[in-house]
């Protein structure tokens, strides 16, 4: 059988459509293949999510993650206020200031040891000793006025200036303060103090002394009970020897009682007042703090603009870094789905 013969015979085996079918299909083609009414409504709602929802969701997810990452990165900086370390069972290193001017002043009534400040929720109902070390950069020419403002802030919050040292002349103007602020108001006071200059460093520590307070109270109660018992025994003593022995024991019990009272008082003082060690250092480049009334200068605007641009660039970079692998994964998934669909079709033909 020759090739033309075979081709002609194969062409003769060609299926031919019914005239009714071709006429109907021609009519539909002329009308632009109109869909049934129900299908026309259903089709867009099915297509829209497939085409646009997935990339949109991926973009939103990448943006959210980027914002969270950038916010956490920026928020963890050394200059951020309220950076109490939790849990902090380390001792608060109070600075022993070499005080040229010792100034116990501005004493106010003790405030109750409420833990409503930073980390308050973690220590609610506990006895906590707080300490903050704050270092501010202040222009040398403003050292004196800033020191005065430190006193004012301490007084405004009912605090005590335990010690202070201010030197405005010479090669290294600076100041150190050791403050005690009522614990409930300490976070706000620290924030106000931080606003007096450029924050160079800030460290907050908290120490839970609940166990020590309970022990001290128990020792106090025990000493008081011992003293009462000795006093009752002394009242019943009849011989001089017994009286002398009981008096000796009473003196010892009273010493213990006084020591226990002092310890409880000391602990309560530490709990009721947060210790703030403030250091002012000379900084020519330090910008004036916003609450000094210096106004919003073009330099401030330039700095803010630079910071905003930096944050925007960081967000964009993170979005890009997140979007690229997501897009790659999406592309691979699409390719995989296409291959699977193709394989299934070929299987249908070959089965």
């Amino acid at each position, binding site marked *: 059988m020759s090739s033309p013969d075979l081709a002609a015979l194969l062409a003769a085996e060609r299926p031919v459509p019914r005239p009714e079918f071709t006429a109907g299909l021609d009519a539909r083609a002329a009308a632009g293949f109109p*869909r049934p009414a129900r299908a026309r409504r259903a089709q867009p709602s099915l297509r829209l999510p497939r085409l646009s929802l997935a990339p949109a969701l991926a973009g939103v997810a990448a943006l959210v993650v980027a914002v969270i990452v950038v916010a956490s990165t920026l928020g963890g900086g050394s200059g951020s206020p309220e950076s109490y370390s939790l849990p902090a069972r380390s001792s608060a290193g109070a600075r022993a200031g070499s005080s040229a001017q010792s100034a116990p002043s501005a004493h106010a009534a003790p405030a109750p040891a409420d833990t409503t400040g930073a980390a308050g929720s973690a220590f609610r109902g506990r006895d906590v000793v707080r300490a903050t070390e704050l270092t501010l950069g202040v222009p040398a020419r403003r050292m004196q006025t800033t020191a005065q403002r430190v006193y004012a802030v301490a007084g405004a919050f009912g605090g005590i200036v335990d010690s202070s040292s201010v030197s405005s002349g010479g090669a290294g103007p600076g100041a150190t303060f050791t403050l005690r602020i009522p614990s409930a108001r300490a976070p706000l006071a620290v924030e106000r103090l931080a606003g007096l200059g450029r924050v160079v460093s800030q460290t907050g520590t908290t120490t839970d002394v609940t166990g020590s307070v309970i022990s001290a109270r128990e020792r106090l109660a025990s000493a008081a009970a011992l003293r009462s018992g000795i006093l009752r025994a002394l009242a019943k003593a009849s011989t001089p020897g017994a009286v002398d022995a009981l008096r000796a024991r009473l003196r010892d019990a009273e010493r213990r009682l006084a020591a226990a009272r002092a310890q409880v008082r000391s602990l309560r003082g530490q709990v009721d007042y947060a210790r703030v060690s403030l250091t002012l250092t000379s900084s020519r480049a330090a910008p004036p703090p916003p609450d000094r009334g210096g106004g919003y200068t073009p330099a401030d605007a330039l700095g803010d603009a630079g910071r905003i641009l930096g944050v925007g660039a960081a967000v964009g970079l993170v979005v890009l870094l997140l979007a690229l692998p997501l897009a790659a994964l999406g592309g691979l998934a699409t390719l995989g789905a296409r291959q699977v669909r193709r394989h299934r079709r070929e299987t249908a*033909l070959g089965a």
Partner: protein
Amino acid sequence: MNATLAAARPAPEAAVGALDFDALYREARDDVYAYVATLVREPAAAEDVTALAFERAYRKRARWRARRGTPRAWLFGIARNAALDELRRARRSAALAADPVDPAPAAEAGYAEEERERRLSVREALASLSPRERELVALRFHAGLSHGEIGGVLGISESNAGTQLHRTIQKLREACHVQS
């Protein structure tokens, strides 16, 4: 359609520039039906799939690009996917091994006995082919696609399509000789 081994159908004018869907439809309507009917082996299903293929092609006509193949290859690719989907949906793949549809039994009444035997021989030889081989025959001799277009439809190279088609024709020819 007059399909021969020597002369392949020339590429339509719409291969360059925008797709002339009306011309493509007029030119390929019966070819698409013939190809689809060979795949699905059932006239009613073939009509449904043919209509669906043209409807899909009409909806996607803006996506056709000349650099990705001729309009006919693009259209037959759509028709192929629709036919395979139909086969999967209806689990009709077993029907591919069934007897081929007799296109026009009444028309054979007037043929000479020798001619009728030759046609029967070819029909039985076609039935002995695998589904993929019958598809190649349908694309080439029923739809008149070139090797390049067949490669585009099946996702293989032009030379591979030519090789597979050559082997299929050889197999078909041998089957015809055995039966005759």
